[in-house]
């Protein structure tokens, strides 16, 4: 089965796990991935409105179509500096 790798950070990463593999299918977008994740992890649904999203370390919109093997980051509000 082809997958994407998901990275989660900060409070969300502590609650859900910092890294997971998720099944990939043709046409899967970031938005679709977040919805699927939210079914299994309610915390993802709670954080979803505030998340920034990146694919392979570049910010990408929710409508972005994923490819197998992509690294998808769910980025809660940042607080560096």
């Amino acid at each position, binding site marked *: 089965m082809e997958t994407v790798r998901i*990275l989660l*950070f*900060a*409070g969300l990463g*502590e609650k859900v796990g910092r890294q997971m593999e998720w099944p990939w299918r043709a046409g899967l977008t*970031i938005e679709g991935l977040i919805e699927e994740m939210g079914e299994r992890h309610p915390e993802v649904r709670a954080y979803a*409105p*505030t*998340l*920034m*999203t*990146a694919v392979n*370390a*570049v*910010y*990408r*919109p*929710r409508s*972005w179509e994923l490819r197998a093997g992509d690294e998808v*980051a769910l*980025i*809660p*509000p*940042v*607080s*560096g*500096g």
Partner: protein
Amino acid sequence: MATERKMERKTDWGWFALSEAPIDPMPLVQFVTRPEMGAVNVFLGTVREWTGERQTLYLVYEAYEAMALLTLEAIGEEVRRRSPKARVAVHHRLGRLEVGDVAVAIAVGTPHRADAFEGSRHIIERIKEMVPIWKKEHWADGSYWVGDQLERVSYPAGGPAPADRKP
């Protein structure tokens, strides 16, 4: 910890690093100082003890490290679009920090002073907006990830666009 991690990117004009070891600002100053520069601005973000009524005991920073370094370099390029001779160095600390520690050091060298001030200010504002680094505050009575309680904002583009704000 036994080994202190450090990741960095260095170009001919920029130096970006993340490290668990304490930050020494002087190498950054030296990196951005050149005979063609007349001004260096340095910003240090330090761990403040009191935020309102709450006393910070210590902080822990974590980062999406590879993306943080790439994003810092992109922010440096924003500064250089405004001031093409600028040299830029940014080091952010990770792991556990105590009150008074330097969490981030930014140094910008430019021929003239206005650009040094503006470049340094631009970098810290952009870090707080878009660099994937997070801070967990630890108090006597608990801890939280800063940002978890922030008002909700949505990012239809995935994140702040590089062109959102000019330096």
